């Protein structure tokens, strides 16, 4: 890793980089681009050279320049999402983001879609519990006109009757189909069992759908999509001086700021003592399980990541796969993951098996948990987990779209710009003592609530 300043041409950059003050961080350099009115701080990391800047209009951007393909991958996000839906209007944020590319300004939905197709660009928005986001991709030759489309969508979305009526029709169908969707049924049962009264257990229903209005969507947009706190990441054939004015143009129609509500931390209920069974007529049972995990800031987080790889996250290298698929042929696949979000942290897993073997399958999962708690991992397993987790990390940086997404993940989690460079060292630092302590603390079968969707045989209750 080395320092450099990338601005105003390569020769200029080299000259400046030689003059970098000694007291700078060894990978970060800053320059005042007076003519442009903004600074660019270059972080020359191991996996990507990230240029950080705040546009003259005040938007914070992380950019990776990648000239080899004439495209730009763009992500924009805000740290507030669906939990801001008012009581009784569950689904409002989802409805709002649906309409963000359904017509703006003089363009109705058809004209907007055709406009995007003519530019060969894409632009769409979405939301999760704690974030709202818009993603775009474009050909750099068409960047100016593509950003005009985004600007129009941000400034003057139409929320027309036609798309709104279609949205409600689609939602009506989706309220029906989700009732036989095993993954949905399992996640609802998990919420009911572990955090029934938290905002994360709220969901769209027929009543809240009927209560949605176009005005409510406009209000929601003005609350969630604002200039203040907006995060942008971009990867493509474009420089900071080219990108900054385009972003400023795109966001100029957004409100400057707003108030959003803070979600309370989820307090998990005690684990269910017997599997929760949801009847669904199908030949296989979906088995999922969940237990408390730790926050991302917890010193044990990377220990859990390493442990999870060996236990159930590592595909064919995991103990659960080796036992339940390879040795016993009970499933096509079983996985686990540590899901540490800001307000909720769960250690989750799942797999499918024929109804007749549901009981054997669950017993097998629990035996593997108990064995990990009692005996821990081996040195060989620890070494293999670290080797994979560190060695595979570069695979996540081989496309513009992936890098833009990863940078946004880091920004939403409020991690530092050198996170990518330091992450492998945090994995390497995990010791066998750590993993065995964390296994004993977190992986007891009694910690886990099992949910079974299907027609499982041999389960009591």
């Amino acid at each position, binding site marked *: 890793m080395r320092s450099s300043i990338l601005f105003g041409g390569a020769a200029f950059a080299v000259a400046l980089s030689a003059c970098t003050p000694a007291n700078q961080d060894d990978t970060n350099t800053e320059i005042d681009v007076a003519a442009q009115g903004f600074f660019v701080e270059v972080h020359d990391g191991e996996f990507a050279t990230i240029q950080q800047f705040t546009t003259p209009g005040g938007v914070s951007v992380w950019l990776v320049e990648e000239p080899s393909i004439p495209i730009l991958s763009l992500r924009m996000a805000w740290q507030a999402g669906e939990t801001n839906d008012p009581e009784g209007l569950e689904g409002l944020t989802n409805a709002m983001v649906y309409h963000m590319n359904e017509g703006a300004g003089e363009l109705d939905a058809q004209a907007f*879609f055709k406009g995007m*197709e003519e530019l*060969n660009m894409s632009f769409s928005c979405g939301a999760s519990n704690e974030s709202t986001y818009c993603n775009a991709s474009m050909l750099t030759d068409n960047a100016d006109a593509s950003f005009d489309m985004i600007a129009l969508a941000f400034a003057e979305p139409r929320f027309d009757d036609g798309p709104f009526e279609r949205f409600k029709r689609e939602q*009506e169908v989706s309220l029906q189909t989700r009732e036989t969707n095993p993954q949905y049924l399992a996640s609802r049962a998990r919420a009911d069992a572990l955090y029934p009264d938290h905002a994360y257990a709220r969901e769209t229903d027929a009543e809240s759908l009927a209560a949605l209005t176009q005005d409510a969507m406009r209000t929601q947009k003005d609350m969630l999509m604002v200039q203040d706190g907006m995060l942008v990441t971009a990867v493509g054939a474009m420089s900071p001086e080219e990108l900054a004015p385009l972003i400023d143009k795109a966001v100029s129609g957004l409100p400057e700021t707003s108030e959003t509500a803070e979600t309370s931390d989820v307090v998990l209920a005690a684990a269910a003592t017997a599997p929760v069974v949801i009847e669904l007529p*199908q*030949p296989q049972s979906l088995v999922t399980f969940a237990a408390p995990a730790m926050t991302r800031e917890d010193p044990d987080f990377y220990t859990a990541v390493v442990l999870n790889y060996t236990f159930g996250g590592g595909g064919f290298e995991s103990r659960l796969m080796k036992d339940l698929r*390879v040795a016993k042929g*009970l499933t096509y696949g079983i996985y686990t993951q540590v899901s540490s979000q800001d307000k909720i942290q769960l250690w989750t897993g799942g797999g499918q098996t024929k109804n007749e073997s549901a009981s054997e399958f669950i017993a097998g999962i629990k035996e593997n948990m108990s064995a990990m708690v009692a005996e821990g991992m081996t040195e060989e397993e620890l070494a293999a987990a670290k080797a994979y987790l560190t*060695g595979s990390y570069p695979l996540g940086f081989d496309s513009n779209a992936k890098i833009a997404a990863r940078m946004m993940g880091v920004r939403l989690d409020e991690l530092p710009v050198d996170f990518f460079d330091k992450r492998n060292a945090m994995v390497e630092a995990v010791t066998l003592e750590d993993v065995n302590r964390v296994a004993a603390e977190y992986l007891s079968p009694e910690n886990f609530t099992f949910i079974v969707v299907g027609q499982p045989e041999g389960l009591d209750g």
Partner: protein
Amino acid sequence: MKYWISGGLAALTLSGGLSFADNTADAWAPETFKLSNGMDVVVLPDHRAPVVTHMVWYKVGAVDEDPGKSGIAHLFEHVMFKDTDDLEDGEFDSIVSSLGGQHNAFTSWDYTAYYQRVAKQHLGQMMALEAERMTDLIIDEDPEGSFITERDVVREERRQRIDNNPGAVLQEQVLAEFWDGHPYEITVIGIMDEVEALTPQDGIDFYKKYYSPENAILVVAGDVSGDEVRTLAEEHYGQIEPSGLVDGSRKWAEVEPLTEIQEITHSDPKVRQPVWYRYYNGTSQRRDPAFAYALDVGLDVLGGGNTSLLYVALVEEQKVAVNAGAFAWTGLHDDGPAVLYATPSPGVTMEELEAAVTAELAKQLEAGFSEEDVVRVRNSKAAEAIYARDSQQSMANLFGSWLAIGGDIDTLMSYSDDIRSVTTEQALAAVRSVFADDNNYIEAQLLPEDGEL
């Protein structure tokens, strides 16, 4: 891991992305050569990150299975991860993983492919591993051994992919009728009873007949040069003697037009949203590229996405459907179906929906396509070329699958130009011929259990 591709996915991969050599200034180009033992090699340079995707494609798939042995190509793909002379069961996985690699394999009607994604310095070792299992696989003949366990895994895979999923059950029934009498009529994952009866000897026979360098294509995409790949490939694959047992013939055949109109319904208590389909005889890019390009453009105008004629009329204006469109599977070697589909709005019966779709189809085909729509669609398809280059894995899949069905690089490289040269008249003529009034079709309906709405 170890999955199979349904025709839909395979077809979409090809029809959606057979394109990348655009009019951009940088002269991106693949490099191709052949090893002395007959193994083809393709190198797809992408120097953005120090990563490579290494793939070996075998020119064998479900199409080549013998009667009564459905599913052997796919089960065999699973077995390739088991013991070899030098590797114990599971060691292939653990070596790749310990190097930070990700790997998998997949099977379709037309091919079987294995891949690893690794940091580039491990490319040689990936080749060594693939070469090892190309020549030295040991098939476990123990009646309680790994071949049999893996057969159980595949049966669970079948339950998960097909039997649990009413839409997949219906599609399997429809395709069996659509390709009745053609080798594609058997499902890739295999019929449950036939999979259950597959034996280790079936695996041994299959391995001998098809797994040999002259029946394989090496594709390497990523941060590597043609010369580097040539050196490594000659070292690891070039030393393998051709088995001499592969005759190279495939069971591909003409797909006969449907001889009657058929109706197939599948109802299941899990179905909450009915779906209506019509399957017509279509084409393939491999057999008739000009017609396939025209059909792909025409079907996008007619029914590809939310600016298409059918969607606008049925979903936006008449509001009888929540979704409606048309597409064709043109990426298989032999002709796949051209499909019309629609899902009814709440309260709309299947009869009403069908009447609305067929009336709208007749109206649009009578009226013809606008030049503006055709230009927009073909430019979009050509631009997918540029976006496709963002994923080295997609590029490797694109080239590998096309070469595995006997296609050539030049056709791929000229795709953007060829698709841009489709005229409004050609696009319309292709769609009119596929959906002509006197053509036969299979009508399929996915219904709730009582068959009523």
